[in-house]
């Protein structure tokens, strides 16, 4: 038995695949004095790792998850515990066959190699025991494999010990996490207390319980995944290895099947979502198998048995083949389906590495170790950042609703714009009732109900005819309406009023506020009060962390406005940058202000009519990138002359309880000018694409820099800021990729239907080959959407300089076909109104 030290630099709690990977990567990053605590016994402590089916499919539509997975597979390969057997996703329906083509495209985008579509006969040739008449085809990935996750864990622990970095204590239960002044100070266990600077929660389904001990929140729920193991299968009697045949994912039935020695494993995500309370998980001793292997609930699985029988009648229908093991295995589900990693926003030094599958664990652990050590993860973890959650996301109700809804999407055909249905509405704009009256189609962002377009604007369709770029294909028409493009055109022609309530807003105040922000921001924020600054934030490696606007309201008061999606993560970035002495402080005023956008050629007329005239809103009186208080119908608002749509206009910040009054005043003032209510479909997609405006999470991510993104300004401010050294280096060398705007030259598919890409598709050269830049990054569509004012479907993509030339002809792969595209802009010049005359009018 290991004896427990009194202190350690880092305590990692949990020795499943995640904790072992963490210990390994922290040691590789040079950390010493790491203590790995495990309540259970090694090598299989009884968590989800112990019953995992251990296979790794590499494809994911999410770039982040694919990157974690591909990196993990490579790490397993290096450890010698990866057995490559290939994998096939099969389709029973035409819709699924189309989805497989989309998965092929995502695979190419993220660099998964050797993939191809298979005919039923080709599937049969690789998996002789399948009934190929049940399927329409398959998608084969040679790099799919099976990992011995327990052995991997053992090897990683050993490697960390060989580096002299790791102490392991198994059979030790954490009973408390101590904090002082918002910082973790150690853990309590049933065998004594350990002081620590950093505590890493790698406890899988138990993570919420441990986090709660410190007053932090890890919003995941344990849920059941059913799995049976049948055998011995006569066909596998001569199996040469644990898995000789490709693993099959029967996507339409939410199931997977794989050979496992002489057995055959059948797993399902098709059954009802069966959630558990973390406090309801049995102890190791009291479990029949393990705490995460619960009694099988046969009734839930019976329909899946029928599906398995249909696809594999030779094996599953063999009377001599028995059900050897059947379990309800527990795994972690999160409200948005992504892992939960990073330092908790509640407690400094307390890190979460949770809700992670075998397939991504080592990659995520490497990312977290890099992040913790230097703040520079190679893979951008923003989609998994624990700081992304708003408070309502952390409620039991939300977790239960979204995980229940999300469970059956595990193998689902999920449209990139697909909306959640459960636990809505949560956050309502003061103008919500007006949106309802205008027949808004609501999309959710950060819990807010945001009009994506307004049904009441249908009349505009007649006005603009074919200019709304109607779509014939069902896929692109889903979660879309031509009304979006009509609203776009109406805004460009006259004016549009946009509800921007989802913004996250923080006030930073105090004598050191300016200095603290200056240290964080690339662009100078030490400007005159009344000025508005747009600025990116970088990480120390010069990767793009965020982009946002900051208004200087007084010498010692700044208002930060950022997108709602990562608003809470951005809040943590700013909060972490506040000096410890309190000389600058952050106050989250998101819920104090609502924001309306008023843009278009008539915007000044409308604001002039709505306001009382006490503020000079002329171009001279209120130039671009300035803010003033403007009184509208007796409400004192803050108007900032800024635009994400490329038009004259303002973002107007209104005390939230007076928001409806201001909306109504603007509405009344706008009607005579033909103003339309304009949805986010225009704001976030069409208008910005025409203007070449970059979006975080699409064009702006850690793996790109400002030079590549075309956002480097001619001069550099004097003050130091995070990432400056790296940025200076980037500025002095030629970029290996350039962000370009491309146009779709011919949307006509082989079947004659016009098709329009939605984003994340691979860009290929004219020979159909993947384009890769000098840093090994593939070119893919970062954003795509209609450009109604330019009459083209627009795409953005980073291209290597050899292709980043105006007029360069390339291809985009979309649902198995190649479409011609050409580079319209290399760099940041807008396609629409290149001189920015409209904004500055």
């Amino acid at each position, binding site marked *: *038995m290991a004896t427990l030290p009194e202190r350690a630099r880092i305590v990692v709690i949990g020795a499943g695949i995640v904790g072992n990977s963490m210990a390994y990567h922290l040691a590789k990053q040079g950390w010493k004095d790491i203590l790995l605590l495990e309540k259970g016994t090694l090598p299989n402590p009884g968590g989800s790792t112990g019953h995992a089916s251990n296979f790794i499919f590499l494809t994911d539509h999410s770039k982040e998850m694919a990157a974690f997975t591909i990196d993990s597979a490579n790490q397993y390969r290096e450890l010698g515990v990866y057995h490559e057997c290939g994998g096939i996703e099969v389709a029973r329906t035409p819709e699924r066959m189309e989805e497989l083509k989309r998965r092929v495209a995502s695979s190419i985008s993220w660099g998964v190699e050797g993939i191809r579509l298979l005919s039923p006969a080709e599937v049969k040739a690789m998996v002789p025991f399948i009934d190929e008449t049940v399927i329409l085809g398959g998608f084969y990935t040679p790099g799919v494999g099976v990992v011995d996750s*327990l052995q991997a864990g*053992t090897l990683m622990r050993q490697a960390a010990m060989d580096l002299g970095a790791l102490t392991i204590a198994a*059979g030790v239960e954490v009973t408390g996490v101590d904090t002082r002044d918002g910082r973790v100070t150690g853990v309590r266990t049933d065998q004594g207390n350990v002081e620590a600077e950093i505590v890493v929660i790698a406890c899988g389904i138990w993570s919420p319980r441990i986090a709660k001990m410190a007053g932090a929140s890890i919003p995941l729920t344990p849920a059941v995944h059913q799995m049976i193991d049948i055998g011995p299968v006569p066909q596998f009697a001569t*199996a040469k290895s644990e898995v000789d045949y490709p693993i099959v994912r029967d996507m339409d039935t939410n199931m997977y099947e794989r050979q496992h*020695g*002489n057995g055959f494993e059948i797993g399902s995500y098709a059954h009802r979502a069966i959630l558990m309370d973390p406090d309801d998980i049995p102890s190791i001793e009291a479990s029949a198998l393990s705490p995460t292997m619960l009694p099988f609930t046969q009734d839930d699985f019976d329909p899946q048995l029928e599906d398995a029988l249909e696809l594999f009648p030779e094996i599953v229908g063999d009377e001599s083949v028995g059900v*050897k093991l059947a379990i309800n295995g527990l795994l972690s589900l999160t409200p948005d389906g992504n892992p939960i990693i990073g330092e908790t926003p509640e407690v400094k030094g307390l890190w979460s590495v949770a809700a992670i599958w075998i397939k991504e664990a080592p990659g995520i652990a490497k990312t977290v170790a890099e992040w913790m050590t230097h703040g520079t993860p190679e893979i951008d973890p923003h989609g998994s950042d624990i700081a992304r959650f708003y408070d309502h996301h952390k409620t039991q109700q939300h977790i239960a609703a979204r995980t229940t809804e999300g469970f059956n999407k595990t193998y689902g055909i999920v449209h990139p714009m697909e909306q959640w249905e459960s636990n809505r509405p949560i956050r309502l704009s003061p103008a919500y009732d007006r949106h309802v009256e205008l027949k808004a189609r609501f999309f959710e962002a950060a819990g807010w109900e945001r009009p994506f377009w307004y049904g009441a604007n249908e009349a505009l369709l007649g006005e603009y005819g074919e200019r709304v770029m109607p779509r014939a294909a069902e896929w692109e028409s889903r979660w879309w309406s031509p009304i979006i493009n009509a609203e776009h055109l109406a805004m460009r022609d006259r004016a549009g009023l946009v509800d921007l309530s989802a913004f996250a807003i923080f006030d930073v105040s105090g004598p050191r506020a300016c200095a603290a922000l200056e240290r964080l921001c690339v662009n100078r924020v030490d400007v005159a009060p009344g000025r508005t600054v747009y600025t990116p934030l970088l990480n120390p490696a010069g990767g793009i962390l965020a982009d946002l606007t900051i208004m200087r309201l007084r010498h010692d008061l700044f208002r930060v406005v950022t997108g709602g999606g990562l608003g809470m993560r951005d809040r943590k970035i700013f909060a972490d940058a506040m000096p410890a002495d309190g000389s600058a402080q952050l106050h989250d005023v998101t819920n104090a202000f609502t924001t309306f956008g008023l843009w278009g050629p008539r915007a000044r007329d409308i604001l002039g009519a709505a306001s009382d005239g006490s503020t000079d809103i002329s171009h001279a009186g209120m130039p671009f990138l300035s803010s003033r208080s403007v009184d509208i119908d007796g409400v004192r608002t803050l108007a900032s002359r800024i635009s994400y749509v490329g038009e004259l206009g303002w973002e107007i910040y209104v005390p939230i309880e007076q928001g409806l009054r201001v909306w109504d005043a603007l509405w009344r003032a706008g009607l005579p000018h033909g103003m339309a209510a304009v949805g986010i479909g225009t704001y976030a997609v069409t208008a910005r694409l025409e203007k070449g405006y970059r979006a975080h999470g699409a064009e702006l991510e850690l793996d790109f820099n400002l030079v590549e993104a075309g956002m480097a300004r001619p001069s550099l401010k004097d003050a130091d800021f995070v990432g400056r050294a790296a940025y200076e280096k980037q500025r002095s060398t030629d970029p290996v990729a350039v962000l370009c705007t491309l146009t779709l030259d011919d949307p006509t598919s082989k079947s004659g239907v016009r098709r329009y890409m939605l984003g994340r598709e691979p860009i290929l050269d004219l020979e159909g080959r993947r384009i890769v830049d000098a840093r090994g990054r593939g070119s893919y569509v970062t954003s795509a959407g209609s450009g109604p004012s330019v009459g083209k479907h627009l795409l953005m993509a980073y291209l290597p300089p050899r292709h980043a030339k105006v007029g360069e002809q390339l291809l985009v792969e979309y649902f198995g076909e190649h479409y011609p595209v050409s580079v319209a802009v290399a760099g940041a010049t807008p396609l629409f109104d290149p001189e920015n005359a409209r904004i500055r009018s």
Partner: protein
Amino acid sequence: MSGPILVFVEHASGEADRVSLETLAFARGLASSLGGVAVEALLIGPGAELGPSLGAHGVATAHVVEDAAIAGVYAPGAWGAALASLATARGAAAVLAPGSDRGAEVLAHAAARLGLPSAANVLSVIPGDPWRLTRQRWAGSLLEDATLDGPMRLLSVAPHAVPVDERPGSPAAAIAQFSPSVSAADLAVRVTGHEAPAAGSVSLSDAKVVVGGGRGVGSAAAFSELEELADLLGGAVGVSRVVTSNGWRPHTQQVGQTGQRIAPDLYIACGISGAIQHIVGCKAAKRILAINTDPESPIMSVADFAVIGDLHAVLPAISAEIRRRRGHGQ
């Protein structure tokens, strides 16, 4: 004063078996708490020599059934009927049997014939109204406090519930011949044949040494190292579930919850982490030696001895050492 406590005593070759002697000790204690009632024994089969010696175990009278028709071979129904009729004849306050296969069977037959309840694997009794007793459930993983009432209490005593209580110098037990009337139907079920254990082959259940292999063995081929040691020790190879599900060994060798339960003198657990499903199959081993790379693995909390190390290095070394010593001995 109530009637005597009657104890069914199993015996062979002129000796009472150990669990029967424990049962007599249990009866002695019970008799004393009942105010000093007599303990009487039922011996079926030649018992004239054994009977008197039971006095040292507290028996006042040994009732001996010598009628070859009943006593010649074991006949569970007939023996149960004999016990029932003797208990009735003696007005016994309690009827006790050892918690062995035969003891349980004979007692159940007696209880069924008497139309009375009986309690199995009792650990202790407090007489009273009703009697309070503690008995084993789940093969001893759980205890039950229960009450038992009736004109006559029938119970079997769990093995090792109390130690044998032999007091040399006690008066010899009196011998009473007992000739029960037993129906032909009761005599119909009886031992009709005997087989000696097959020579040579060592079955898992009989093996004195079992060399067990788990996930840590790593492959089907690597089991030769376990077989070699088992052969040297005249033992057998057993395996954990993961081994059979990997197809490395046949299911007949599986030890544990879904396999066999074994009770060798020594179980050598090689590369077995010690999942409870496996432990239940081997915990009856007198001693367990674990060979495992991981000192934290759960097998360590059930093992008596451990070697920390890779079984692929340790096992061949043990086999070589055995051969070396034997070579020197010749």
